[in-house]
């Protein structure tokens, strides 16, 4: 069998390469309506008309010469790997800008296919493109697609297969003005002398242009040829002298001149050119309004969390009823004994107590898919840039931060889009403060139990605290971590788009699967472990003889007083048993640390177990209360268990304290230093403790 033909999908950020990749290969990679959703290479093989194609989704970039780190993955791939075919994905609505990259790709001399993606938007705007003329001018086949609607996919696969089988065509050559051409020629000759027989004419011309452009990487590669480097500097200053512009600008202008000229010939506008983006303008007048913009952003987030709580409550009740039914059934069928107790009070309480939050999580992910898919998230980072700048952060940091609402692990990974190393480290260290979906069950449980009437708002307030702490902590870290510098805010605002039903549903399905996997994995194991820890040791020396006391009570004639006394005795016995169990004893050992915050040993126990994964906090509560109070609903049981101020302090502590094990691991990996991972743990614990103390003290005075 012949080896597969490598086809690289290359385009500007947000040109739809990943949507195209998904349509071509049936993959399910994440897509959204903002730039740089894809940050690493993904490849998949497909066979079309007998040809095996290895399709590679390359992270988007604007230029092969900008050398900004977020564009590097793509550039390095094109230059280092030399794919067999380049599929140049263009956003057909933004050809003026996207053809710049095309001119650079032409110079690589690699076989190309040009894809005009999002053709539906262009047609709607009344724009007609003469694809035959465009194809001959670019020296490549042109295919029109609409990746989201899966239009033009077969035609594209056909073009790939045909190109894989065809003999390579003569590469196209872009012509610059005479001064530039002469300079390129001289550098090219110099290069051929230094590397005789090694370089094809296309390759040496490409290298010459890159060097004249001032590409540091290519220059570094040739740095041992001092004469050549001197030569290039001479050419650059001669050109600058003649044109009053540096060489990079001259080349860039020439590239745009080529694409502008080409577009004048191939593109025809019927009607109003701005018609297609009229809706975007109207929506932006509203969402980016100078006075309304920020309040609207807050309002949208409030609606999101309110809906997460209140809409989630309905299906949650069904699941609760289901869990109750199952628990009763197991309770009755299993014979009395330790296994019965383990299943009912351990597994059913822990797993059942956590799974009920599934609807809330799916709803949260639905809203996040809408925010990122429509293009609103890009606007939010524009609105917030100034404010975040004050905190030493960058507007675009908002995107990994919002991703952190889902899970902190991808949020830490998403910081790789930040150029400046120090800025990236800071973004990484603040991302665990973003309230991931594992904290959501704790908020919903506590807000529902202690603040029934304003539960949605309390959940919203927790998320605001989460953002606020992240920002505040950025200021602090900016002082602690030596160095300075940040990135420029350069961001394209995409037009508003309607996310496809498919991608939204996929997002929700993914989150549901992830949550169920956690519940049946770490939560299940955690619940079993916690049950054993709270059940043993069994030979407890009680402070009084409960058994005898209960037996004595039973001998008395029936009366309401007798029942009450028995209940009190039983509950006191259960409580003492818990407190003297391994779980209780170790929790009580650390409780002095949490005493100032008003936490009992139950909270301490939950905090300790939640270190593994924060969903375990609720599972721990469920197991403890199942043992103490029987199988009542957790929300009901929890009511009145502590003052409201303590409840808030506990929510805040859970929100902020030490990231879960997976997050600590990813911080260590991404910062390449376990010291920063350790720092993150100590730092967040301190933050959590101080803030929880402040809240319990201040709240205690008011509530």
């Amino acid at each position: 069998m012949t080896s597969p033909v490598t086809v690289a999908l290359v385009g500007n950020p947000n040109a739809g390469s990943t949507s195209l990749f998904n349509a071509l290969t049936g993959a399910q990679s994440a897509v959204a309506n903002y730039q740089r959703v894809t940050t690493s290479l993904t490849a998949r093989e497909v066979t079309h008309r007998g040809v095996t194609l290895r399709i590679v989704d390359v992270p988007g970039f604007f230029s092969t010469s900008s050398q900004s780190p977020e564009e590097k993955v793509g550039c390095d791939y094109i230059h280092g790997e030399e794919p067999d075919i380049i599929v140049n994905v263009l956003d057909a609505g933004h050809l003026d800008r996207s053809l710049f990259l095309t001119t650079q790709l032409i110079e690589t001399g690699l076989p190309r296919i040009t894809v005009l993606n999002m053709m539906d938007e262009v047609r709607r705007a009344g724009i007609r493109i003469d694809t035959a003329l465009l194809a001959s001018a670019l020296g490549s086949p042109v295919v029109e697609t609409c990746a989201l609607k899966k239009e033009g996919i077969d035609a594209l696969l056909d073009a790939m297969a045909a190109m894989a089988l065809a003999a390579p065509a003569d590469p196209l050559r872009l012509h610059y003005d005479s001064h530039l051409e002469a300079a390129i020629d001289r550098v090219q000759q110099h290069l051929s002398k230094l590397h005789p027989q090694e370089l094809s004419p296309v390759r040496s011309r490409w290298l010459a242009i890159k060097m004249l452009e001032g590409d540091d990487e290519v220059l570094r590669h040739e740095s041992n040829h001092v004469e050549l480097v001197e030569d290039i500097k001479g050419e650059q200053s001669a050109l600058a002298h003649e044109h009053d512009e540096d060489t990079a600008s001259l080349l860039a202008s020439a590239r745009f001149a080529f694409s502008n000229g080409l577009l004048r010939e191939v593109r025809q506008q019927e009607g109003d050119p701005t018609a297609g983006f009229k809706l975007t303008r109207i929506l932006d007048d509203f969402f980016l309004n100078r006075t309304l913009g920020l309040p609207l952003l807050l309002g949208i987030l409030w609606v999101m969390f309110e809906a997460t709580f209140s809409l989630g409550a309905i299906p949650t009740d069904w699941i609760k009823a289901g869990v109750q039914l199952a628990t009763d059934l197991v309770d009755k069928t299993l014979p009395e004994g330790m296994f019965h107790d383990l299943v009912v009070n351990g597994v059913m309480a822990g797993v059942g107590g956590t799974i009920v939050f599934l609807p809330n999580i799916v709803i949260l992910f639905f809203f996040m898919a809408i925010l990122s898919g429509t293009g609103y998230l890009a606007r939010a980072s524009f609105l917030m840039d100034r404010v975040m700048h004050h905190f030493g952060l960058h507007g675009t940091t908002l995107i990994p931060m919002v991703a952190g609402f889902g899970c902190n692990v991808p949020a830490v990974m998403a910081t790789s889009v930040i150029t400046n190393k120090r800025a990236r480290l800071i973004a990484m260290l603040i991302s665990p403060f973003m309230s991931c979906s594992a904290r959501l069950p704790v908020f919903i449980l506590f807000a529902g139990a202690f603040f029934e009437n304003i539960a949605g708002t309390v959940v919203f307030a927790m998320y605001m605290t989460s953002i606020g702490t992240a920002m505040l902590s950025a200021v602090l870290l900016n002082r602690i971590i030596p160095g300075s510098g940040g990135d420029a805010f350069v961001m394209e605002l995409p037009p508003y788009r309607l996310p496809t039903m498919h991608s939204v549903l996929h997002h929700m399905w993914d989150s549901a699967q992830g949550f169920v996997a956690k519940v049946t994995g770490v939560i299940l194991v955690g619940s079993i472990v916690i049950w054993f820890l709270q059940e043993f040791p069994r030979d407890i020396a009680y402070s009084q003889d409960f058994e005898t006391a209960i037996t004595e009570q039973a001998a008395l004639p029936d009366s309401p007083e007798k029942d009450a006394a028995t209940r009190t005795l039983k509950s006191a016995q259960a409580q003492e048993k818990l407190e003297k169990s391994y779980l209780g004893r170790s929790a009580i050992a650390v409780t002095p640390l949490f005493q100032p915050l008003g936490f009992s040993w139950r909270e301490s126990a939950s905090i300790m177990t939640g270190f593994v994964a924060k969903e375990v906090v609720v599972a721990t509560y469920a197991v403890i209360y199942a043992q103490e109070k029987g199988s009542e609903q957790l929300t009901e049981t929890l009511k009145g268990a502590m003052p409201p101020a303590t409840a808030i302090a506990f929510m805040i502590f859970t929100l902020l304290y030490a990231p879960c094990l997976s997050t600590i691991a990813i911080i260590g990996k991404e910062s390449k230093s376990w010291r920063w991972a350790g720092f993150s743990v100590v730092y967040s614990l301190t933050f959590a403790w101080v803030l929880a103390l402040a809240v319990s003290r201040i709240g205690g005075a008011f509530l």
Partner: protein
Amino acid sequence: MKQDIQMDNVTLADLRPEQQGEIVKIETEDGVFKRRMQSLGVVSGTAVTLDRSAPLGDPRIYSLMGYSLGLRNAEARQIRIRVK
């Protein structure tokens, strides 16, 4: 000549909503930033208008080459323009 000197001082950050601008030059020592801006169409001769400003006047959204580009004022000050 006097007029020329005046025009020299106009940057993208000075562009007002009703005005039409044309890029003249990017004035920066930062090669990466310069090449990045160039690849986004900020080259001599490109027509540019101010779309809108963020609530606190910074950053701003500019319209050029048929798309919207968000830039902070600090960066916009490094881009010299001519007002038509």
